[in-house]
C-alpha cells in the first residue's frame, strides 16, 4: 500500500539534478502528505477489520442473532411468468391379429376403438400448458397432437381462493367420476385402456361444463362433486340445445391405515341423453348393421384404490390395487338399418349392463414394476323390441387378461411390455403384445393419488 509513496520518494531521490531546493521541499512535503494519508487509511482499514472480526466472532457465538434477510430472491428471468409447459411423447409396437373390426360383444360402444394400429406407431403426443392466472384462478390446457389432427382434451380454469373446501372448475375437463377417469393415457398402469372404460366412454368421460367440488373439514377425506355440462360425448350426443345436457354426481372418501396403507373409495352417477348415437352391430346373419340409439343413459360407478408402501416410502417396494365396477341403464329407441334391418327398423331399446376391472401393480425393485389386470363385462338384460328378430342377444361375457412389466429409468421415462389375452368379442380370442414408451418433457406436474 505504501508502494506509490515509495515510488514517489524514489523518483524524488532519483532526479535531484533537475530539481532546485524549492522544488525539492515541495516534493518532500507532498511525499510526507501522501505518507500520512496512507497511514490514516491503513488505520481506518485495520479498525474496520478488527470490528468485522469481532462481529464475526460474535455471530459465531450467537449465530441466531437477528435474521438476515437472505431470503432467496425469486428468479428474475423474463420467462418466469410463462406457463409450465410439458410434452408427453408416447409410442408403441403392437403385435395384433389382422381383424376387420374389434368390438365388445353385447355392448354399444363408442364408434372408435383405440389402440388397434398394428406394428410400430406413434400415439398421440400430449402438449400441456398450465399456470396460475392470478391469485384467484388457475388455467390448464391439454391438447393431443396427431397426423393432421389436434384435439383439445382439456381446457379449463379452476378457482384457487374460494375457500371453505370449495373449488369450481369450468371449461372442458375430464369428469371426476370413478377413479381412472381423470387420468390421461400416459398415467395409466397398462398400455391399453380397461374394457370397462372402453365400453362406457371410449377413453374417458370428458365434458364441456362446470364442476363444483367440496372437501369436508373432517379427518376422513370426504369429497363431494357435482357437474353439469353439454353432454356431447359418448354415451351422450351433441343435441344442439340450450340448457344442461347432462349431469354427474360423485362422492369419494379416503384415508390412511398406519404409515404404510392408504385408500380411497367412491360412488359416482352420470346421467346423459343421446340422440341418433351410432354404433356398429352384427345381425343374426353376421352382417354389419348400423344402429342409432336415442334415449337416456344412466351410469353408476363404484371405485376403490388401495396403495401400500413400507412405512409410506415407495422408493424400493410399493403396491397398488385398483378396482372399479359399473351398472349402466339405457332406455329409449334403436333405429337399425342395413342387413336384416333393411332400409330401417325402429324398435325400442332397453338395456341394463354391468362390468368392471381389478388390477394390481407391484414395484418389486427400484424402477421395475409388474402388474396384472382382469376385465369382465356382463351384457345383462337387453331388449331390442321389434328388432329382437333382427339382432342377436348373446349372453357372452367379454373379458380380458393383461400382464405387464415396466421399467422407468427415471420418473420422466418409462418402457413397458404387455401381454393381453383379449376375449372382448365373441369367437374372436386374440393374443396381443405391446411394447410401449412414455416420455415426459418439461415441467410435468404432480400426479394425483
Amino acid at each position, binding site marked *: 500500500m505504501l508502494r506509490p509513496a515509495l515510488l514517489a520518494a524514489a523518483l524524488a531521490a532519483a532526479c535531484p539534478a533537475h530539481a532546485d531546493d524549492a522544488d525539492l521541499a515541495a516534493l518532500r512535503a507532498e511525499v510526507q502528505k501522501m505518507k500520512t494519508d496512507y497511514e490514516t487509511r491503513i488505520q481506518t482499514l485495520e479498525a474496520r477489520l478488527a470490528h468485522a472480526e469481532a462481529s464475526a466472532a460474535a455471530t*459465531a*457465538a*450467537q*449465530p*441466531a442473532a437477528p*435474521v*438476515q434477510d*437472505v*431470503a*432467496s430472491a425469486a*428468479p428474475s428471468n423474463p420467462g418466469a411468468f410463462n406457463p409450465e409447459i410439458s410434452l408427453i411423447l408416447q409410442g408403441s409396437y403392437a403385435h395384433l391379429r389382422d381383424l376387420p373390426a374389434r368390438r365388445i360383444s353385447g355392448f354399444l360402444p363408442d364408434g372408435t376403438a383405440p389402440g388397434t394400429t398394428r406394428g410400430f406407431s406413434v400415439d398421440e403426443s400430449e402438449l400441456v400448458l398450465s399456470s396460475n392466472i392470478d*391469485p384467484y384462478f*388457475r388455467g390448464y390446457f391439454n391438447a393431443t397432437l396427431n397426423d393432421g389432427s389436434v384435439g383439445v382434451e382439456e381446457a379449463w380454469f*379452476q378457482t*384457487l*381462493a*374460494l*375457500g*371453505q*373446501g*370449495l*373449488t369450481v372448475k369450468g371449461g372442458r375437463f375430464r369428469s371426476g367420476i370413478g377413479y381412472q377417469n381423470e387420468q390421461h393415457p400416459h398415467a395409466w398402469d397398462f398400455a391399453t385402456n380397461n374394457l370397462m372404460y372402453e365400453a362406457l366412454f371410449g377413453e374417458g368421460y370428458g365434458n364441456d361444463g362446470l364442476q363444483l*367440488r*367440496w*372437501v*369436508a*373439514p*373432517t*379427518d*376422513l*377425506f*370426504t*369429497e363431494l362433486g357435482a357437474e353439469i355440462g353439454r353432454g356431447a360425448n359418448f354415451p351422450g350426443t351433441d343435441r344442439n340445445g340450450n340448457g344442461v345436457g347432462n349431469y354427474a354426481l360423485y362422492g*369419494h*372418501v*379416503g*384415508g*390412511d391405515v398406519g*404409515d404404510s396403507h*392408504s*385408500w*380411497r373409495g367412491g360412488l359416482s352417477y352420470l346421467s346423459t341423453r343421446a340422440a341418433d348415437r351410432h354404433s356398429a352391430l352384427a345381425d343374426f346373419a353376421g352382417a354389419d348393421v348400423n344402429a342409432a340409439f336415442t334415449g337416456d343413459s344412466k351410469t353408476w360407478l363404484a371405485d376403490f384404490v388401495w*396403495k401400500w*408402501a413400507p*412405512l*409410506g*416410502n*415407495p*422408493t*424400493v417396494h410399493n403396491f397398488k390395487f385398483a378396482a372399479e365396477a359399473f351398472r349402466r341403464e339405457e332406455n329409449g329407441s334403436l333405429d337399425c338399418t342395413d342387413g336384416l334391418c333393411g332400409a330401417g327398423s325402429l324398435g325400442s331399446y332397453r338395456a341394463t349392463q354391468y362390468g368392471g376391472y381389478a388390477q394390481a401393480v407391484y414395484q418389486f425393485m*427400484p*424402477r421395475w414394476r409388474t402388474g396384472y389386470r382382469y376385465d369382465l363385462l356382463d351384457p345383462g338384460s337387453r331388449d331390442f323390441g321389434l328388432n329382437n328378430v333382427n339382432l342377436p342377444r348373446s349372453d357372452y361375457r367379454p373379458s380380458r387378461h393383461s400382464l405387464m412389466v415396466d421399467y422407468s429409468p*427415471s*420418473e*420422466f421415462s418409462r418402457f413397458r411390455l404387455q401381454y393381453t389375452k383379449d376375449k372382448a368379442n365373441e369367437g374372436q380370442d386374440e393374443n396381443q403384445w405391446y411394447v410401449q414408451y412414455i416420455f415426459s418433457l418439461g415441467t410435468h*406436474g*404432480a*400426479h*394425483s*393419488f
Partner: protein
Amino acid sequence: MKAFRLFAFLAAAWPVFAHAALNVFACEPEWGALATELGGSDVKVYTATTAFQDPHRIEARPSLIAQMRRADLAVCTGAELEIGWLPVLLRQAGNAAIQPGQPGYFEAARQVALLEKPAVLDRAQGDIHAAGNPHIQTDPRNIARVAQALGARLAEIDPAHAAAYQTRLADFNTRWNAAMTRWQAQAAPLKGLPIAVQHEGFPYMENWLGLKQVAVLEPKPGVAPSIGHLAEIVAQLKTTPARVVIRAAYQDPRPSEWLGQHAGIPVVAMPFTVGGSDRAKDLFGLFDDSVAQLLKVAR
C-alpha cells in the same frame, strides 16, 4: 323458554368452543417440531411425512388433502422439494388461506441462503432443484433463522396469541443458542472429516461442521447407484479415502452398506430429520444424535 335459554347460552358460548388451536400442516417433521416448539398449546400440528419417507416422493394421499383442507398455516421447505405432491394438495383442498402468496403459506427455504444452485438446468443432470439444495434442516443455524421467521408468521396469523409466540420464540432462541454452542464445541474434532454421502442431502451440515465430502454414491441426484458405479467409488476412495459413508434414515440402506463393506469404512444412518432415530425425538435430539453418530466414527 328453557330451550331458548339453552340456545342463547350455546350461541354466546360458541366462540369459546369454536376457538380451536391454529391448525398447522407441516410438510416435513423438522418443521412440525419447530411449529410445536414455537406454537405450544396454541397450535395443533399435523406432520405430513415421517423421517422414513423420501420427501421428494410422497403420494398426494386423500388423508393429506383432508388435513390441508383444515390447515390455517402450511409450513413446508419449498425450493421444489415437494414439487411432486404439494401442488396437488394445495389445489384439491379448496383452502384459500394456505395458497402460495398468502400468509398461511410458509416456505422455510426462503429464509436461508441456499447452497448448490445449479448453473445449468438440464434433466440430464438428474433430479436437481433450480433454487438450490433444499435439505436445509441439517444445519442448526438454518433452523434458527427459520424459527425467527416462523415465529413472526405465527404471530401474524394468530395475533391473539402473538405475545405467547414471541415468548416461546425467545425461550427457544436461548435454548437453541446454548445447544449450538455445545454442538460446535463437541463437533470440533469433526472438522475436515472426509465423508462419502449416498444422496446430496448434507451440504448444509458439511458447511456447518466443516466436513469434507469426497464422494457421492448417487451418480446423479435422485438416481439410484448401480453396483458398477459403486465399484468405481470404492476405487476412487482408495486415492481419496473417506472415514465414513452416511445416508439419511429414509434411504435404501443397500448402496451405502455395500460401499461400507467394500471400502472397509463404517456406515452411519443419520436421522436427517426429527423421528429419524430413537434419540431424534425433537430438534435438539436431532442434532445431539447427528453429532454423536459422527463423533463415534471420527474417533
